[in-house]
């Protein structure tokens, strides 16, 4: 079985986000980025279902963080990494266009990616890519088993209810959670991979436009917002006022 895992580099929300001077994007100077956490789950799930002889290929569109994502994926157990040059990761339409070209003809059985990312304003990569490639897709997948060209997946609804589906392969899945917490690769291992492994390169083009135009970005107006308390005494007063103690 050949599995592709699509990776994306996103701002780390632990950081303070600020609007840039144009007022339509976030200021990325000095901002820390990381692998989209749902992509990390997609990678973990791929490594979990892969048996001996299966191939897990990590793929990312060239940009900041690409080498780090791909070398880390290999250090965690991916068979290889492909860096896509010439594409754009500026929006989902571009990502999908780039990934579709790279995947086309690659004989992948499964294409896994994170269910969503923190900035995918123009749509979620999994279903957008699947529609571009004419493949079936299930998003918000929290369990996956493959047997005989068919994936059995559960898709999460609300209230803890999940639905089980069978999906003919090849298919695209938007992964919500892997069966286990994504593994960690020690820095020394990543460095070792970096020295001993070459990333494949493939040239793609990102031509799609997303159709929506961002006209403003701001920190959300708070609906009044919280009354901020300075010390625990104040909090205790409030709890007592609510009859809690």
């Amino acid at each position: 079985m050949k599995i592709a895992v699509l990776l994306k580099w996103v701002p780390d929300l632990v950081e303070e986000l600020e609007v840039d001077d144009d007022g339509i994007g976030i200021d990325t100077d000095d901002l820390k980025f990381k692998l989209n956490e749902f992509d990390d789950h997609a990678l973990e799930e791929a490594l979990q279902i892969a048996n001996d002889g299966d191939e897990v290929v990590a793929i990312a569109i060239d940009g900041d963080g690409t080498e780090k994502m791909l070398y880390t994926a290999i250090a965690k157990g991916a068979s290889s990494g492909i860096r896509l040059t010439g594409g754009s990761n500026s929006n989902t339409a571009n990502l999908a266009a780039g990934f579709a070209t790279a995947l086309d003809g690659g004989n992948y059985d499964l294409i896994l990616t994170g269910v969503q990312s923190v900035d995918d304003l123009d749509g979620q990569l999994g279903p957008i890519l699947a529609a571009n490639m004419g493949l079936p897709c299930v998003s918000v997948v929290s369990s996956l088993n493959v047997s005989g060209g068919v994936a059995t997946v559960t898709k999460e609804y609300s209230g803890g209810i999940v639905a089980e589906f069978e999906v003919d392969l090849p298919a695209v899945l938007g992964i919500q959670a892997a069966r286990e917490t994504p593994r960690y690769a020690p820095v020394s291992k990543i460095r070792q991979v970096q020295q001993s492994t070459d990333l494949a390169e493939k040239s793609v083009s990102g031509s799609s436009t997303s159709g929506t135009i961002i006209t403003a970005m701001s920190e959300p107006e708070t609906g009044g917002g919280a009354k901020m308390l300075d010390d625990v005494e104040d909090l205790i007063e409030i709890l007592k006022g609510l009859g809690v103690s």
Partner: protein
Amino acid sequence: MAGIMVICEHLAGEFSDITFEMLDVANKIGGDITAVTFGSMKEKSGELGIANNVIDAGGDTEYNPESYASGAKAAVESNSPSIILVASTSMGYDIGNPLAVNLGIPLASYCTGVSSDGTNHEFTSSLYGGKMSVTSTAAGPAIALMLAGAGDADAGRVSGSPSLSQVSGESLDRVRFKQLIEPDAGDVDITQSEIIIAIGRGIGGKDDIEIAEELAEVIDADIACSRPLVDAGWLPKSRQVGKSGMKVKPKLYIALGISGAPEHIEGMKDSTTIIAINSDENAPIFDVAHYGMAEDLFDVVEELIDELE
């Protein structure tokens, strides 16, 4: 006539709240409103009184990503709406996104608001885990994936007798529904709790949950959590609050180390009083909380336990 189309969502034979929220949003935009239903839900079209028309797009009553996306496409093609509202949910993701690609029209995700003059639309979206509000525009037919909370479900729940018509999508069977699986009932039903202490990733590690449990004992609260703690296997799914977890409305909800992503807020925003403790003063949880403390949760919780015991 260009109008607004609402792709209705249902589960277990009932329209979901988000369906009525979207009808309310459509009603506030104004214009001719068409609701699209699947499977046997057409029989409940009387509940969709805000809509002028209901299109039955066929398919099984159990959701199917492929056939619902195809039915929705047929409905759009028969009706040419200017805006299509789809739920920003697990089901909606696999309808709205392929619809945008297959119709070649723009889509805006995570919408908390939509306005339109019939041709030009403006979307407000909650991005970066709720830390940024983004305004985007599109002209001509476009899709909005609507977040829960964008509309008022009660206002959208109007009975009536919209006209009913029918379309059918392609019959596809690459994705096959097998079964619905209900969650294991937990030891505690947090939807019934009066006081909830909810812990998030800020708690650090599994062993640190103990301190929250200690506080819970002191103030007679039940422990709940955000999703990552369930994914990590630290707490059972029955304790998860949010989009893919439980919706809770306790008298008091104390959030410890929870950032306040839209998917979490969806499950707890209707709590009577919300207190949030988070070391990041810009955490979006403070937007829905009534009281907040931008402090280290361990310092606050330890002091609370000492003082209240």
